[in-house]
């Protein structure tokens, strides 16, 4: 799958905004991604390893709820990762 990283999260992927990542499901892809970019994992995931509610994950434009992250994703699928709002 191709993960598109936007804005607030870019500095945690060393400013790579389009990242090819392997995995059978969206969750697999996020695990692989946070393994590759540990600082992103610290921001994206809570202590239990769940995606924080403050970040939105979408598969081909469809926003996924936490329990939908096990949706299958092929190498051509696009996963968008967005921080809804920050409080600077």
């Amino acid at each position: 799958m191709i993960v598109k990283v936007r804005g607030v999260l870019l500095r945690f992927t060393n400013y790579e905004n389009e990242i090819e990542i392997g995995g059978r499901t969206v969750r697999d892809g996020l695990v692989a991604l946070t393994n590759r970019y540990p600082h992103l994992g610290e921001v994206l995931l809570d202590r239990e390893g769940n995606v924080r509610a403050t970040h939105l994950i979408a598969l081909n434009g469809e926003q996924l709820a936490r329990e939908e992250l096990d949706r299958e994703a092929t190498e051509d699928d696009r996963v968008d990762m967005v921080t809804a709002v920050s409080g600077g």
Partner: protein
Amino acid sequence: MPRSSTYEVVLDAGLFTPTQLQATAVGRLGFQAGTRWMRDHVGSHRTLVTRHRVGFVLWAWELEYDNTLRFVDADEARVDVRARVRGPRSSQLEVETTISGPAGVAARTRAASVPLRLAGDRALSGTPAGLPEKLVAAFRDDENERSPHRSQVPALRAELERNGERLTPDPTDLPTFRVHRHHCEVADQWYWAESIGFAGGAREECVRRHGRSTPELRRALAEGIRRIDAMWLRSGQLWDLLQVRTTAYRHGADIAFVHELGLAEDDGGGPHAIVVERT
């Protein structure tokens, strides 16, 4: 009586257009003023974020220019600022600021922010929440208003669409602006005042394109804008490519510009901000 903070700012040429304070400069001065009021009476912005895990995101702003203040008029201006909590669940922070020169109040602004409960991550991500009780307690009774602040933008836009005379055709080839780091605040999210600048840039582009066929549009540059109302719906972020859809109206004696800011590549999430400028 609600508490105020009052101080002086030195005026430099970068704050001005040829005729008045730049709108983005007024926005920055107003945000600085609100930050100062909070530091003086409640807690510094830094400690709110780092210790209380409370952030703020602006969602509505009004600017009204009043008496003339040009670069040549004064060496400094006086800033007066007050703030209060609004909403039945303390879900808004409203800041009112005036910037005054020798002729009196030059610009007055009202800004409404939504408090965020920060998740605690380095991205400062957060979700809207009421202001925590211990912070609400730092406001006096007369600084706590149970009725919410309401943006005038939806009604204003509807009025212009209903009763205004449209001066520009359906816009095509929309101007685009990319959000770069110098447009952002600490979290790599656009600094809201910069989006006022993007709207102002789109107005200039509108005048540049249509000023020959509709010369009265040039008034908006020659005489300046007298009033801005803005409402934010989503945050722009670092490297986002935005487009601005601008429609100009004649409404009574005013020329009005309605700017809709959104992603150039539509993601179905709707516009990021609506900015209405009036002469």
